């Protein structure tokens, strides 16, 4: 019998997490003792003006086995070979909240474990990072944007909190809605591969009706004609590629200081097709490298952008009896709650490996400390290793 199965499932999961950390130390060359505790003191207060932040989340969750564990390395050549050596890497990012994509991503954005119905199109209860940013630094609406899949994320830019909320949030662009808006009625065949949504729940499939808001976003914000947008979309292979295209367009036209993109192709795992899940991870790996390259190629961003890459959470272990392995994230087991975070940027000490457990809630206070604004209602603590 497999010794892993013979163990208590939690012990087995812990062992797998441990194996990943050991692997990272040895294979990625990030294991110097000084790197574990040798981070710099807080320097956020001294950051020069014009600093920018990009947060890229793997909405859909990815497991160790398919990413940083030895057998998963083949799926993340860009992160492993290009991004990891430039990054501070948090090996144990724990999510103790609800493991549903919208509510978990909202929790990442508020720094509080949100508890609303994951299937409801509601705003987060607590102020988002975008509201803290705009209110704290008195920034205009055009300086904070979210690019998100269309399944319920349309409310993520702005909370329902009375002290923040209305008028202080980020603009939210749902690329699939943009595409639908640009397409003539009943002409989706050529673009159908870009309109895929997740497979967890049929009702996540969005109402893809274009309207005037989408037209305005295309023409006024992204400075794209419908024809150009459609033409470029034909060259793309997935919804996430469309999202990154929109992100780059935002960077080019508005150069916002705070950008948040949620990739979501990975969530096809809910259909039970392992090959499609792997395809999603490989695509996310490539797209994260593309985003970082876009940062380096854009004078508005190069040298002054900190980028955070993290899955919203993991997925169930193969060995947790209540689940069905990679397909879902329903058991709340150790692997589904434990993931990683990569931080790149001019102030980041490259090649740092952080072994201590941190929480996904730490992201918001870290961003606040980095850019110099308060996040009073957020829980978690600033991550000193990247400040």
């Amino acid at each position: 019998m497999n010794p892993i199965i013979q163990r208590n499932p939690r012990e087995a999961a812990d062992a797998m997490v441990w194996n990943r950390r050991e692997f990272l130390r040895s294979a990625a060359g990030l294991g110097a003792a000084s790197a574990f505790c040798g981070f710099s003191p807080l320097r956020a207060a001294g950051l020069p003006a014009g600093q920018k932040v990009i947060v890229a989340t793997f909405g859909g969750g990815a497991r160790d086995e398919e990413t940083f564990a030895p057998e998963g390395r083949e799926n993340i050549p860009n992160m492993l070979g290009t991004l990891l050596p430039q990054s501070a890497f948090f090996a144990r990012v724990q999510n103790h909240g609800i493991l549903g994509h919208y509510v978990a991503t909202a929790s990442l954005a508020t720094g509080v474990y949100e508890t609303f119905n994951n299937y409801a199109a509601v705003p987060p209860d607590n102020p988002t990072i975008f509201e803290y940013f705009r209110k704290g630094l008195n920034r205009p609406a055009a300086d904070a944007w979210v690019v998100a899949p269309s399944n319920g994320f349309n409310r993520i830019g702005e909370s329902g909190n009375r002290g923040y909320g209305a008028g202080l949030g980020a603009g939210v662009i749902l690329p699939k809605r943009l595409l639908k808006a640009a397409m003539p009625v009943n002409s989706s065949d050529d673009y159908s591969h870009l309109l895929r949504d997740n497979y967890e729940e049929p009702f996540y499939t969005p109402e893809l009706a274009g309207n005037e808001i989408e037209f305005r976003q295309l023409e006024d914000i992204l400075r794209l004609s419908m024809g150009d947008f459609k033409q470029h979309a034909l060259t793309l292979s997935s919804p996430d590629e469309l999202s990154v295209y929109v992100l780059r367009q935002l960077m080019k036209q508005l150069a916002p200081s705070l950008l948040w993109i949620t990739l979501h192709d990975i969530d096809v795992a809910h259909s039970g097709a392992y090959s499609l899940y792997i395809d999603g991870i490989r695509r996310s790996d490539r797209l994260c490298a593309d985003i970082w390259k876009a940062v380096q190629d854009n004078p508005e961003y190069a040298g002054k952008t900190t980028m955070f890459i993290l899955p919203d959470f993991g997925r169930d272990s193969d060995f947790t009896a209540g689940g069905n392995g990679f397909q879902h994230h329903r058991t709340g087991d150790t692997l589904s709650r434990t993931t990683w975070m990569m931080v790149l940027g001019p102030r980041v000490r490259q090649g740092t490996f952080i072994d201590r457990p941190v929480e996904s809630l730490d992201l918001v206070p870290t961003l606040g400390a980095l850019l110099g604004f308060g996040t009073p209602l957020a829980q978690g603590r600033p991550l000193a290793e990247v400040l």
Partner: protein
Amino acid sequence: MQPAELSAAGFSTYPPQAGEFARQHLILLRQLPLALAVIVLREVIRYDWRFPAERRTLESQFSWLESLPAEKRNQILGPFAQLSLSKEIAAFAWVSRPQEASEQMTADLWATHQIDGYHAAASSYAEAWRKDVPETAPSTPRLCVAVLGPGLRAAGYPLFRKLRPHGVFFPQVDPASNMQAILDKLSARLAADPLPHQHWYIDGGLAEAWSEARITRISWGELEPLRTAILQRMQSVIARPDAGPELLRTVLAETTPADVGLAGSAQDQVLSRFKISVFTEGSGTQIFATTFAQWTVREALRRAQPSTMVVRFAPRQRQLPMDQLLARTNSGNVPDPEGSLIDADMGVFYTWINQQRLTGSAQASFVAWSQELNQAVAVGPGFPRGTVSSTRVHLRQLLA
């Protein structure tokens, strides 16, 4: 309502055997914490269409709990009692609608950060039960054969990578090997142990022609009318103005064999309900044949705990937007042989894991075979771990 307030009349809407079972154990049910009572009744209400192994499990747990001294029982059930459930759960009709109540309770436990505590309570409960009532290994060691059928191919793909460390890899299987060898083995095991639902053949494509009625047989091809009916049912819910995930789950959970043209005898109801559950409880089973095969064999192993399991994976259709797949507006969609092979390879690994969860796992045998690539891996007694055989071997030899 709290469990202490339960009465025999509360089970009047239950199917006959389920109602009788609940009434027989009413005294115990009244003493359960609410969280456990909801989960237990979710199982009890389906008693009439449960497999024999599931009935034995339920009966065993009730007998065990009833046999415990009050102090020990309270100690075991304590972690469930410590969970703080919302008033809405107690106010809900959890006796007559335990499935919906359990979904609400799960959402409540997640939202209140008690889900880990619930899982811990469930684990310690199961451990205590199995410590007092150990499982007995089957008299005949279990056998599972997983086949990667025709049409599953990908250039250079390393097959059985996850399974190889656990047994012997055979890269040269005699091309003359065929499904008949497996079906013959299935017949022989059936003849030796002809209990119902102990020998299964699940096919992710069109099943081999076979007249043996005592084998529990399910295939993607044969279930096409059922799959169509379920998808139509889903579409009808999606089109409703009050549509939503909760409504869809409720409608699917309430699907009866009569709703989808599966009328039959009481005994047929067990299998009919199982077939329906594959499409109503599984995710992706309605659209991908590989997911259908993996989930069906998982559920069959978990629920029926069979002695013999044969599963064959077949190509699935290519990925399309979910609304197109659900609405079946993709009649021209073609198979995805490469993706299907990768999916099926993982499905084979999961099938082995699920077999290992059953009693007698140390004596069980597992054989996986690719019809296209003439490769196999065998796991179990007599197959040294992590080894490769250079010998050309016929499938019958691996099944001997």
